[in-house]
């Protein structure tokens, strides 16, 4: 199987993990999704766009091995190959860490494009971990995306910010600016979902959120202690000991690669509306 994949040219698909609101689970999801893709045999690289607040390296567990970073490559101080850190667990997985000392303006459209073009020559999936907000850093992370995973918590400010980000994906990206190009394919990843609190009426349902955002659902990740444990040890949750959250991420990854996987929301019955939305999109 690996031989098959190697003979094909790389897919070179750019996927941004974004949200608007901070702290909703972008970096956790970037780590889980990239590790999940690599685990399934796809050559994958995950890039930290959160310039100044390097965090992806800790989540991936490679913080002690960072030498050069994304900004060094953009500014010509290092070659891309030198800055890429190969994951010690999965040979298909590489990490491109960001700079801790520069500011976001070090990210230029031309620089980002050059790096992405070079990565497309080698990787099937290029996962871009966006910073929070809708400013320059977030815009650079989404600009060249083919697809977007909009990480959303079932909570008002997160849903509102996701809506704004969906608007930006439809207007402030290369695909949006290119005539006749397909728009960025955006999907919602609902994270920190708590079935018990949905049951008691404290938390919006998956249905509620999708009715408002009206984009397809990539998956539902439960609020889970497995996430904290995985981040403590620097292990993407799909590579840690089996957990419901890990399985939910693996399902989401399979959907991302075009496999139809039944949506399971642990502890919750499947609502009808998202069935419709999801069915329409796929």
């Amino acid at each position, binding site marked *: 199987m690996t031989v098959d994949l190697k003979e094909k040219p790389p897919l070179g698909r750019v996927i941004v993990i974004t949200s608007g609101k901070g702290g909703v689970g972008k970096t956790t999801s970037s780590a889980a999704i990239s590790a999940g893709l690599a685990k399934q045999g796809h050559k994958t690289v995950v890039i930290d766009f959160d310039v100044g607040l390097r965090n992806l390296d800790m989540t991936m567990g490679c*913080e002690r091995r*960072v030498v050069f970073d994304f900004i060094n490559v953009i500014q010509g101080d290092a070659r891309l*190959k030198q800055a890429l850190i190969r994951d010690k667990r999965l040979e298909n997985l590489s990490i491109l860490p960001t700079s801790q000392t520069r500011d976001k303006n070090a990210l230029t459209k031309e620089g980002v494009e050059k790096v992405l073009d070079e990565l497309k020559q080698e990787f099937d999936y290029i996962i871009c971990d966006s910073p929070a907000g809708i400013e320059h850093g977030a815009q650079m992370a989404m600009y060249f995306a083919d697809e977007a995973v909009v990480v959303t918590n079932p909570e008002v400010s997160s849903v509102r910010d996701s809506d704004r980000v969906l608007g930006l994906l439809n207007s402030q990206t290369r695909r949006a600016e290119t005539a006749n190009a397909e728009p960025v394919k955006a999907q919602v990843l609902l994270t920190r979902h708590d079935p018990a609190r949905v049951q008691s009426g404290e938390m919006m349902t998956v249905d509620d959120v999708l009715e408002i955002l009206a984009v397809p659902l990539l998956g539902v990740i439960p609020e889970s202690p497995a996430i904290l444990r995985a981040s403590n040890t620097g292990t993407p949750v799909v590579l840690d000991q089996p957990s419901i959250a890990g399985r939910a991420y693996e399902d989401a990854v399979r959907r991302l690669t075009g496999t139809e996987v039944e949506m399971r929301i642990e502890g919750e019955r499947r609502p009808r509306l998202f069935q419709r939305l999801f069915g329409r999109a796929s």
Partner: protein
Amino acid sequence: MSLFSFARKQRRPKSAQTAKDRLQILLAHERSRGGADETDYLPMLQRDIVAAIRKYVAIREQDVEIRMERGEKMSSLEINIEMPRPTPS
């Protein structure tokens, strides 16, 4: 009995302790240069190494590979230089 539980503890340490250990090592390095990235000098170091070796051997920029592993007591910097094949005379 106690030996058994000791062995189990060793195999699966509590993740919070791992988190603390990782942070302590990382932050010690980060703070050592006044909050700045302690590896900020690496691009310059690389340039100097290439320049020094070029005095004797014709190598290219991309023939130098630098790897680092930060440890608790010490860090290791690994520099690999791919030397050109000797030209047949």
